[in-house]
């Protein structure tokens, strides 16, 4: 007979939420930097750079995030000949994964800015980086907010995969509690509900932003 499920057990689950959030935020921050770079490379006038960016996106979108996690976890150990804890591995893996998806989303947002805006900037004698910085990126950023928030929701849920290599976030905490209480049908619904509480407000936000930005810019998104 296992432990009963009470307030202490519930609090154990709640205390794992910061790790889920920390991993998600870290991956968003790291992936944001990678993604911006990828999006800009994919817009650049040089074909080799565009291919590099496209290849990166295809590779990470075309393989399961679980495999990316395994390769990173064992890869880091082989590469540095030290067994790291799970944290550097999950952060690296989710950063690379987010970088690919955010790169794709943001590239799509840059594409959604009308071609004529580039032309108008070019005709004011602005260099390519200045065209991007002053004219294209500010407009692309507005277009990209709803899909970016939408991706953040996916990311929060996908970080549950980190449980597999033993990183203690919300899902792993649920597994640990199940192992001691043997009450999976109480614990997993609660874990799911906690994810829902994190994700639902973001989903609502994404939808509101989408409506508002469509109305002000009058641009339909295509990606």
């Amino acid at each position, binding site marked *: 007979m296992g432990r009963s499920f009470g307030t202490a057990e519930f609090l154990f689950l709640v205390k794992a939420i910061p790790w889920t959030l920390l991993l998600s935020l870290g991956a968003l921050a790291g992936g944001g930097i990678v993604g911006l770079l990828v999006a800009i490379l994919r817009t650049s006038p040089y074909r080799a750079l565009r291919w590099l960016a496209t290849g990166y996106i295809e590779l990470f979108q075309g393989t399961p995030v679980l495999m990316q996690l395994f390769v990173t976890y064992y890869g880091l150990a082989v590469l540095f000949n030290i067994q790291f804890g799970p944290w550097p591995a999950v952060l690296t893996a989710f950063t690379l994964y987010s970088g690919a998806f955010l790169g794709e989303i943001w590239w799509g947002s840059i594409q959604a800015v009308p071609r004529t805006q580039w032309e108008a900037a070019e005709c*004011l*004698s602005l260099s390519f980086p200045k065209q991007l910085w002053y*004219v294209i990126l500010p407009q692309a950023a507005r277009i990209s907010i709803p899909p970016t928030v939408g991706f953040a929701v996916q990311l929060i849920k996908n970080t549950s995969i980190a449980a597999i290599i033993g990183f203690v976030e919300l899902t792993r905490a649920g597994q640990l509690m199940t192992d001691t209480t043997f009450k999976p049908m109480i614990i997993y619904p609660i874990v799911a509900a906690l994810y829902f509480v994190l994700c639902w407000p973001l989903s609502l936000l994404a939808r509101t932003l989408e409506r508002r930005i469509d109305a002000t810019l009058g641009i339909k998104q295509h990606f």
Partner: protein
Amino acid sequence: MPLLALNNISKRFGGHQALDDVSLTVEPGEVVAIIGRSGSGKSTLLRCINGLERPDSGTIRFDGRPLELTPRQLKTLRREVGIVFQSYNLFPHLSVERNITLGPTAAKGMTLVAARELALRVLRMVDLEDKIAAYPQQLSGGQQQRVAIARTLAMEPRLVLFDEITAALDPELIGEVVRVLDRLARDGMTMVLITHEVGFARRSADTIVFMHQGRVWEKGPPDKLFGAPETVEFASFIDAILSVAPAAKQRVG
């Protein structure tokens, strides 16, 4: 010496011969109005002049220098040759002021303070100094197009290209934009315009160029050209314009 000289310019898009051996010169202070049906190569010609399109063959000389369209030369060219587009292409996320000051500050290194003075000056030229803090979507089409003209003037170009700038406007807004064009022409600005405003062309242009099938079909001063069209194509074009747009007939008047 002409400010702009095009010699034997040709350009193909796939199987379509957009420009076929076009030669044209523009003297300082000259106002050249290009007219013709859609698909006659007018826009392509204009876009070749400021390097948005690259001709397949032929030479372009600006101020005596041949254009090779290297990136560095393009940057210089864009300071000297401005363009105003049919769909205004203002930057929707920037105020009128910033739309105008962006080029002078970011491309020419002007200080923000000097650029603000400049913005007021060019806005005064288009009668919109009270709109300096507005955003493009708060303005009517005619006002947006006048801001776009001001933005181009702020680069202090030696030649301004106008690509059918009244074509997207509601009829009642065309007049305010044409008045600005008339004023610029009178003040001695060198201009090349694609226009359907026959009234403006007669009144303010020094030279009319009628393009047909990618070629310069007829060319000359407005009175001579409109008074006595030499070719059947030009005569039928004039007839077509006047019959579909009774308002235009009045303006030709």
